[in-house]
């Protein structure tokens, strides 16, 4: 019964949303529309409330194990802890789409009510948001109904959530990511409303600034959590695989980063206005493209949901429609938006716009990497895949140029050029320190890889230039932007640690009997297989090994596990990780050989924890920018 109520509430919400649209289309050009806006706003709030209640009921149903609902029966299990019963809702397509819509609604209802009644763009923004929520709600109800019942006989037991998904990091990874993805619907709708409205003297940046920054924070946390989870749970020892689905999250992230920057430039010196508007539209468009790629099953990926052409067509149609509307309005308003102001070479905004172009190039290259296999297959039937080498080759020069511009921009001023001589003097110490740093790394490691060294050099350039800035302003007491400093050092550290990780990390495969020990290499002088235990947990069998590793004379005990889950018979490995300042000792247990010995994969991964730390720095930096009193 409850599920029918939840279903009914969602359908009602869709009807109310359509009514708002129809009502406003008819009366858009009526003279007095204050009352209409009040009415529409009320209806909009009600429609959103209906969605929240509906989702709340669904969460309750998942918690009480109502296996008469097909989706819950397929993805949950009565033996699961309550936490995973609830998170199982977003472990597959229908439920995660529902969650996506709930977040869309939360952002929308907050923003619409944040805009004052007299705000000239309130109505337009609200209508755009209504259209988008309605589009996704219909998608949910028509093509992927989570409320569907198994009739007449309910399942007695649920099929269980995939064991690799029974993990706290993965439970919060999708919500964070969705909050980020969907958050850019605010800037998208606001910009389309602004373009439609046509009063271009209005300074629109201040209204959506904080909203975009918060969405950026969620997106960054979401991506980082996913990467962290993949590292410790999947047992491959990697943190980023250039998988198509990772790429479709990275594209909006890059666009959002570019958007944040040009929003600063646009508000400081009223240049780059068209460009900023375009980027604001792009972010959400790329999110929609991502939703299409992931949910249509068109691309093979570890994340892809079951293949369903109907969903693909609907999403492609809907995203195409939304994108086309927004770009058409932008194109129509383009002549009015032309600014007479030119960007002065050597000014802060000139460096900033160069980096914007580079970020767009990066997005385009990723887009090409994602879609090229599809294009090629439809052209000549060749099946191909594009892996890390492509992205590494593309990204290393882009990163280098970006870092150089970033270095130049630190001492540059808004709207004023900089003398070349002054610029050279300003960057000389940074360059010198970075070259020394790269030389030192080469001296100690004796490993050379051009791509990795480009990354290390770029990272050092950014870190050094901001660190020098920090020291000099501590001395002169000059003002500097602390949030920006923190975020950029985070980025530099990211480049640095990713590159260091790629040259220093290595893997050894070992096979041993219980009680045996082995010499691995000079720094890993002993690998001892102490014990093997077989135990039973509530919903799985465990095989746990006890290993002693002597790593540079430090004793490390590691307990990697292999688990076999009863419900699906699925086998998973639990990696054992020991972390020290620079590196992780990362051990997975493999299969038992016919002769009774066990295989292990031992990885020494350098600077991985630094990667998570650097994205924490970026998030902290942006958070500081939000809470700074004078944002613009």
């Amino acid at each position, binding site marked *: 019964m409850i599920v029918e109520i939840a279903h009914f509430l969602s359908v009602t919400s869709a009807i109310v949303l359509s009514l708002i649209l129809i009502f406003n289309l008819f009366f858009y050009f009526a003279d007095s529309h204050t009352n209409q806006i009040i009415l529409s706003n009320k209806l909009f709030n009600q429609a959103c409330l209906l969605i929240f209640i509906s989702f709340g009921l669904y969460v309750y149903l998942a918690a009480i194990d109502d296996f008469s609902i097909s989706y819950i029966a397929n993805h949950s299990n009565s033996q699961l802890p309550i936490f995973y019963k609830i998170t199982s809702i977003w472990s597959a397509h229908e439920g995660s789409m529902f969650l996506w819509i709930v977040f869309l609604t939360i952002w929308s209802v907050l923003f619409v009510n944040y805009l004052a009644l007299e705000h000239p763009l309130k109505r337009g923004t609200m209508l755009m948001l209504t259209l988008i929520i309605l589009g996704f709600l219909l998608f949910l109800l028509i093509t992927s109904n989570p409320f569907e019942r198994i009739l007449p006989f309910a399942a007695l037991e649920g099929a269980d959530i995939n064991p690799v998904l029974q993990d706290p990091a993965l439970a919060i990874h999708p919500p964070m990511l969705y909050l980020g993805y969907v958050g850019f619907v605010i800037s998208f709708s606001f910009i389309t409303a602004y373009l439609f409205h046509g009063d271009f003297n209005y300074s629109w940046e201040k209204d959506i600034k904080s909203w975009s920054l918060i969405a950026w924070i969620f997106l960054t946390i979401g991506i980082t959590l996913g990467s962290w989870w993949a590292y410790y749970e999947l047992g491959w020892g990697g943190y980023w695989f250039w998988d198509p689905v990772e790429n479709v999250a990275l594209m909006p992230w890059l666009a959002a980063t570019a958007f944040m920057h040009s929003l600063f430039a646009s508000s400081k010196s009223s240049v780059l206005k068209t460009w900023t508007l375009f980027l604001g539209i792009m972010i959400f468009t790329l999110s929609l493209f991502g939703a299409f790629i992931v949910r249509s099953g068109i691309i093979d990926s570890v994340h892809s949901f079951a293949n369903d052409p109907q969903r693909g067509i609907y999403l492609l149609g809907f995203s195409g429609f939304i994108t086309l509307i927004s770009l058409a309005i932008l194109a129509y308003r383009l002549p009015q938006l032309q600014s007479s102001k030119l960007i002065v070479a050597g000014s802060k905004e000139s460096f900033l716009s160069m980096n914007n172009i580079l970020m767009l190039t990066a997005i385009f290259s990723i887009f090409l*990497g994602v879609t090229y296999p599809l294009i090629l297959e439809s052209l000549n039937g060749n*099946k191909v895949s594009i892996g890390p080498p492509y992205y590494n080759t593309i990204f290393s020069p882009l990163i280098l140029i970006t870092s150089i511009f970033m270095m130049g921009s630190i001492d540059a001023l808004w709207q004023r050029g900089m003398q070349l001589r002054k610029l050279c003097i300003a960057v000389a110490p940074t360059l010198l320190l970075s070259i020394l740093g790269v030389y030192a790394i080469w001296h100690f490691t004796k490993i050379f890889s051009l791509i990795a060294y480009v990354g290390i050099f770029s990272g050092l350039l950014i870190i050094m230039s901001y660190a020098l800035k920090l020291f000099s302003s501590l001395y002169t007491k000059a003002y500097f932007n602390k949030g920006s400093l923190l975020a950029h050092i985070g980025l530099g550290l990211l480049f640095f640690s990713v590159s260091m990780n790629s040259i220093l990390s290595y893997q050894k495969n070992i096979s041993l009997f219980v009680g045996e020990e082995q010499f691995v290499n000079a720094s890993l002088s002993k690998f001892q297989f102490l014990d093997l235990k077989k135990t039973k947990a509530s919903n799985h069998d465990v095989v746990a090994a006890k290993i002693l590793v002597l790593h540079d004379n430090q004793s490390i005990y590691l307990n990697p596990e292999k688990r076999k889950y009863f419900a699906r018979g*699925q086998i998973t490995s639990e990696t054992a990780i020991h972390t020290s300042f620079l590196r992780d000792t990362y051990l997975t247990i493999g299969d038992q050989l016919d002769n009774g010995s066990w295989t292990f*994969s031992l990885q020494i991964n350098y600077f991985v924890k630094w990667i998570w730390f650097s994205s924490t720095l970026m998030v902290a930096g942006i958070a500081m920018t939000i809470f700074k009193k004078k944002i613009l």
Partner: protein
Amino acid sequence: MLKSRQKRLQKFFIILLLSVAGISLVLFSLNSKLDLFYSPTEMLASELKLGSRIKLGGMVKIGSIRRVDTDIFFIVTDFESEVPVTFRGITPDLFKEDSGVVALGYYQNGSFIAEQIFAKHDENYMPPELMPVSKKNDS
């Protein structure tokens, strides 16, 4: 008038030239970094250049897995042709007999040397790349 138009045209061509150069660089890099996907039959039929990295996909033949120390030997089949595969390392948890597998590596002297082994994500999931193969099997 004419002069400004000429200038504009000049600018346009410069931008065009730069973008073409950029895009062709990207495409060039793309083409040398592609991993072509083959089924065993397709791979044996095609004339591969020695040392070209490809992806080989199919099913793990029943009873073909053999482990020696940390090396693993098995046969990938599409129920028409078979290719022996060698891999050094730990296979993914979902790697098992009679289920889908994708190996990334090189074909040399009649056997496939895999650098990486990918298995299916979950038991219900089948890579689209393998769909035609498994359908053939069903029919």
